[in-house]
């Protein structure tokens, strides 16, 4: 068995605040295999973005403290010098960020910004880099690359800008593509185009993708494997099919059941998770999800164990035998209006 492309072990990130250090991520471990798409799911404050930014060294070192290990192709990113990180960023690991409206520098043309990245990492001449940029714009489905290359970001629509950001991310053939909510800011018809593009690119370029999202629909369409994060921890991890057909963690149940269906009968009420996600500085002791959990047990005041199965795990006291009963009880509890 080959070693994974990215192996993160016991990653912890905390930020300096007035009350001292606030932990955002606690002992996070996961891996990304060659050529696979891993979806990281979670709500605001779950730490899903911070985890990946910390790995790329994109957090402000004056306020963020990062511990643990993130081995990318065997090199520990967290120990790498700024110079080494600069060589990896944009060349081996590329980032597609959430809001295409603000992700591009407003004062430079599209072409200039793509050429800049190519020339930073390769010895290509300006002319060759320009040709490559046009080629990339064509590959992400932009009809008139030459015209778009001469335009400024504000002259393009959101969908076009996201294509440009993707073209730029692909410019150095990265082996890992990190996409942070790449379609959240887009309309649904444009989102479908961009997701389609990402799937096609994975097939053609063979990069691994880490896709951060909060939309279980996007997960179902894109992921090989899923990592569910809550309150700075992985609460459940597994193959996409397993997670959707038999979710283990009550939080995952909630995520799946709270989405109103597009077809079939309409439920009287949606299954909802009570309360709101905790602020990082107000996370409860024991199981972080306990205050919102409809299946909470007395022992949930203690740190929950990791239940393990073939290729999957969940951070919960409920074991195989208890899950089905607990889940149907949780569903019933919603039916009485609060």
């Amino acid at each position: 068995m080959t070693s994974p492309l990215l192996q993160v072990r016991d990653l912890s990130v905390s930020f300096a605040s007035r009350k001292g250090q606030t932990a955002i991520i606690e002992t996070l471990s996961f891996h990304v295999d060659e050529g696979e798409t891993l979806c990281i799911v979670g709500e605001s404050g779950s730490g899903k973005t911070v985890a990946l930014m910390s790995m790329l060294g994109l957090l402000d070192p004056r306020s963020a403290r990062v511990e643990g290990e993130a081995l990318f192709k065997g090199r520990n990113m967290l120990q790498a010098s700024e110079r080494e990180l600069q060589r990896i960023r944009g060349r081996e690991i590329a980032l597609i960020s959430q809001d295409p409206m603000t992700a591009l520098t407003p004062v430079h043309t599209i072409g200039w910004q793509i050429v800049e990245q190519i020339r930073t990492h390769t010895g290509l001449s300006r002319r060759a880099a320009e040709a490559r940029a046009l080629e990339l714009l064509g590959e992400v489905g932009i009809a008139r690359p030459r015209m778009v290359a001469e335009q400024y970001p504000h002259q393009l629509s959101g969908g076009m800008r996201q294509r440009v950001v993707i073209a730029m991310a692909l410019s150095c053939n990265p082996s890992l593509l990190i996409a942070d909510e790449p379609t959240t800011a887009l309309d649904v018809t444009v989102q479908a185009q961009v997701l389609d593009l990402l799937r096609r690119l994975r097939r053609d370029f063979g990069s691994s993708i880490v896709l951060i999202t909060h939309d279980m629909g996007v997960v179902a369409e894109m992921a090989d494997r899923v990592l569910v994060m809550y309150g700075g921890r992985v609460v459940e991890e597994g193959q996409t099919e397993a997670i959707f057909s038999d979710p283990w963690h009550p939080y995952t149940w909630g995520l799946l059941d709270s989405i109103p269906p597009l077809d079939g009968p309409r439920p009287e009420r949606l299954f909802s998770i009570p309360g709101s996600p905790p602020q990082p500085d107000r996370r409860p002791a024991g199981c972080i999800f306990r205050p919102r959990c409809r299946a909470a047990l007395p022992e949930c005041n203690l740190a929950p164990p990791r239940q393990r199965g073939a290729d999957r795990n969940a951070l919960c006291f409920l074991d195989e035998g208890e899950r089905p009963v607990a889940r149907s009880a949780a569903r019933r509890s919603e039916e009485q209006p609060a």
Partner: protein
Amino acid sequence: MTALPSATPVPPVSGTPLLRVENLCKTFLLGRTFLPGSGHPLHAVDNVSFDIFPGETLGLVGESGCGKSTLGRCLMRLYEVNSGRILLDGTDLAPLSQRQLRPVRRQMQMIFQDPAASLNPRRRVGDLLAEPLKVHGMGDTAGIAKRLRELMDIVSLPASFLDRYPHEFSGGQRQRIGIARALALNPQLIVADEPVSALDVSVQAQIVNLFSDLRRQFNLTTLFIAHDLSVVRQVSERTAVMYLGSIVEMGPTDPLFRKPAHPYTQALLSAVPVPRVGTAARRDRILLKGEIPSPTHPPAGCRFHPRCPAAQDRCRSERPKLSPLADGRQVACHFPLAS
């Protein structure tokens, strides 16, 4: 599948509508200078007509820039309308001055997308909720205090929150406060503009449920504006789909979602990623080409024809009117799909 068991009782769509909108138009002038006649017209709302019956929720869906929010604001008369009528219980609001509108404002209230931005951060929740009651002279101090506790109970928040400030609450709690404020005056009509889209998924379901509960409890009449199709399906009896300023399809929610008649509705529905894996989830996706054209330069003929997979010559020259189909829904298409 026929005759889906719908959990939400569909009220009889008959009788007098509470709100009747007739040929509403709203045009913005972009790039306007002091010279008369300058600026590009943007037809944000283009000849829109619809009814909402008492106790009904009409869902209004569309992508960004389709004019759905502008329409909502026109109904509230937050914008001046260019032409058309807005009949609330028989009274036309369109020509009324802001002063004449004041008594009408009690009858219709708006819920906004971002509850944080619509609540004054320097006022306590209690003051925020009491304000409309005082402005409209609804009861004395004791009566108002009682009403405030009632409102908090309706939106399932503890009465102790009345003494706190908006920033102390999470997004979901703030949206509950926004809803309580809108309900304070017992309005006849609620216009909810993307009320759940800023919320986390798990919290979104709570607020959607709250809308269902309120409707049952108070027989609320609501225009529910959202871009999320599944949310609209969950809350509304009827749904209207907007594209580039016009309604392209409107009808009872279940048939509209099951068998869309307009190619745009069909594409929109097929584009939503479904949280299921395996063969059951693989639907035939219609990938629309290109993006929504600029509303300042809308295409001739049917506004949707440049992106429509089924466009024909007639679509390029002649603009289809919103006309009824056999099953009671309306569609603006020369070649409707479900017939």
